[in-house]
Structure formats: C-alpha cells, structure tokens
C-alpha cells in the first residue's frame, strides 16, 4: 500500500464526530481522506480545534499555522486556546484519537518516535510525549520495515521511548496490527497473506498472532 492509500485506510477507522490530532509528516495526509460530512474535528497542539486544510496564496496568514508550522485555514466552528489548555485537552483524555509516525513500536504498544539516540543528535521532543500518553487511542502510521530492511514493529524498542504501552494500533504498508499487553495481532493483511507476514516477522524475533 502506498502512503496515500494507507492514509485513506486510517481515515476509514476514525469514528465520526471524533476529536483527532494528526502528527507531523505522514499522518497529516489522513486529513485529505476524511469525509467532510464525518464531523471529525482536527486539533492542532499549538492551540486550535476545527483546523481546516493547508492555506495557499492570499489565504496564508502568519498567525494561523499548524504544529508543523505550515500555514493552515480555519473551518466554521473553529476555536483558539493557549498552550496549557491545548495540552490539558490531551492529558485530560478529551482527544479521541491521535495518529503518529514512529521509528519503532513494540508488540506491547511502546512508542519510540522522538529520538534515534544518535550521540550527536540535538534532542528535541515537541509535543510527541504529550500526545502519546494523552489521546484515548493512539494509532501509528509507518512502514513495517525501515530503509535498511529492519523491522519497525519489534519485541521491545531499542530507540529511546516516547511513551510506554500507549499505542493501540499500527497501520503499516503491509498490514494493520493491534498491539497491547497481549502482544501484536494482525488485524488486516493487505497484499501478502497474514501467515507470510507472521513468518517474516518471526524471522526477526517477533511473534505475531
């Protein structure tokens, strides 16, 4: 599945009328596949609900940006609030879903998406840890293998954690997995049979049901 197909697949699982935060990067594309009639309200952690699509041309307003600092628009019924309120909304369990990218997710739902632990990297976390533990459901969108062919769904994360046991579902280019205390389960396989994906992951040391 290509990234846009995957974004469309994630969008189908977002319940109507839910409050949703889409992480920077790939998850942002989910917005393009949400049905306007679904009543889904997008939250951006820099202080807005009912964020609209990207702004272009003379609709660009430097005071109206998303968490990725890109110019966006407001939809009717939008609301603005300050940062402490915006993150209270997350931690307080008011956001239904957030969709995040990841370097690694463990079978038990640990998330690593803020640092690869490289010794020369400048640490930067932004709102990743707040989102990971705040939203009621955390979906991850990622490729199942990295560019060097290493699995990103793993028995336990080797990169520094963003949050422990916080991810409930992982959407990859190959399959959708549920993760949690009981381990990883294939929920839906796309182009390759589930058994083949299980064998492939078993070879990396990960047991998937």
């Amino acid at each position, binding site marked *: 599945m290509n990234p846009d197909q995957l974004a469309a697949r994630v969008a189908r699982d977002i319940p109507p009328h839910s409050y949703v935060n889409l992480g920077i990067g790939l998850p942002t594309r989910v917005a393009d596949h949400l049905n306007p009639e679904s009543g889904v309200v997008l939250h951006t952690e820099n202080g807005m609900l009912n964020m609209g699509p990207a702004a272009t041309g003379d609709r660009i*307003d430097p005071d109206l940006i998303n968490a990725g*600092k890109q110019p966006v628009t407001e939809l009717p019924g939008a609301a603005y609030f*300050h940062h402490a309120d915006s993150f209270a909304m997350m931690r307080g369990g008011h956001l239904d879903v957030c969709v995040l990218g990841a370097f690694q997710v463990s079978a038990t739902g640990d998330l690593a998406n803020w640092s690869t632990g490289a010794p020369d990297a*400048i*640490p*930067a976390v932004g709102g*990743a840890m707040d989102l990971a533990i705040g939203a009621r459901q955390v979906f991850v969108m990622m490729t199942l293998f990295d560019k060097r062919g290493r699995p990103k769904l793993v028995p336990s994360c080797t990169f520094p954690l963003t949050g422990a046991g916080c991810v409930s579902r992982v959407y990859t280019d190959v399959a959708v997995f549920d993760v949690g205390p009981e381990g990883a389960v294939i929920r839906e396989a796309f182009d390759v049979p589930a058994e083949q994906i299980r064998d492939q992951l078993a070879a990396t040391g990960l047991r998937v049901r």
Partner: protein
Amino acid sequence: MIVASADDAVAGIADGSTVLVGGFGRAGMPYGLIDALIRQGATGLTVVSNNAGNGDTGLAALLKAGRVAKVICSFPRQTDSYVFDQLYRAGQVELEVVPQGTLAERLRAAGAGIGAFFCPTGAGTLLAEGKESRTIDGRDHVLEYPIRGDVALIQAHRADGMGNLVYRKTARNFGPVMATAATTTIVEVGAVVEVGALDPEAVVTPGIYVDRVVNGSPA
C-alpha cells in the same frame, strides 16, 4: 503600563535573568522586544521558549549575539535553527528539553502558585530520569516543578490602557501562560486601544498580569 518604545519596555532587564519568550515558530514571536533586548545588552540569560529560534531573527538573533547561557524548550531542532545548532554543538549554550505540554503546564503552575505537580507525560522515558515519580491510579507520573520567569516577552493582538490583552489565532500559543508566570510581563501589541474598547467577555489575559505594553508589531 503603556510605554513609548520597545527600548523603554525592556529597560532594566538584568544579566542572568530568566526570560520567557512567547511564540510558536514565528507566530506570536515578539520580534520588536527581542531586538530591543539585544540593544539593551543583558547577557547570561536563561531563555524559556518553545523553539530555539528560526533563521537569523528574533530568538536566533539573541542567541547569535551571545546573550543566552541556557535554553529551556521543547523543540530546538528545526530546518532553520542553525544559530542554536552551532552554539549547542560548540558547547556554548546549555539545553534543557521539556515536553511541550509539560513546558506549558510548568509555566501555568508558576503563575498559579502551584508548588509542583505529578504529570504522566514522559514517565518511563529518558526525560524522566533523575525525577521523582509516583504511580497514581495505576499510572506512572513524574514530578514536575514550575518555571518562573523574571521577565516575559510576549506578543498580543490588542491591548487596552489597563493591559487587558486579546490575541490573534494560533499566535496566542504561550502568551497567556507566560504572562502569568513572570515577575515582569512585557507585551508587544499590534495596536493599543482605549479602555472600554475591548469586550470584557473576550479578554484573554486580564491586565493584572501585564506590566508594560508597547505598540509595536505589525498587525
């Protein structure tokens, strides 16, 4: 309350001060006040802000001028944060990385007189190392302390002569919490309006939190 220039607004900021700087990226960044602070000359500053400057202006210019000893922020690394990146790699600026929501809440706590709070964000991660933790209702929490500023530099859309503030769109970001968290809160606004011209129901930051206002930023 209303001062004539950005230079008057930043007068008296001492060396070694903790300065809260509003803004998320460029939105809500009080550029006029930061430029005035560079001219004013205070050094050895601890800067608390979400980012560590963009390009060569604002916070990046303050860093480049060598006035900042420490940055407390959530996300210093950006595509155009080369000034901070160079100083950090050269060991010329100290960095404390704080999750964005924890940064906001630590500022809020300072302004609200809270001694410390247990927060689930970051529990079990590198950023919780060395911090007191507690399991509450089955969930791990980390003890977080307030961040108080000697000075807050923020930007708002309008102020009246009482110092009441309204903001504009996502430029609001850290302004309202930083305004509460500093001994001296200094605000750059797009326009100063007459007392009574702001709808009291729409005031976001009441003037009690505001010390100096300068008519400055373009709006």
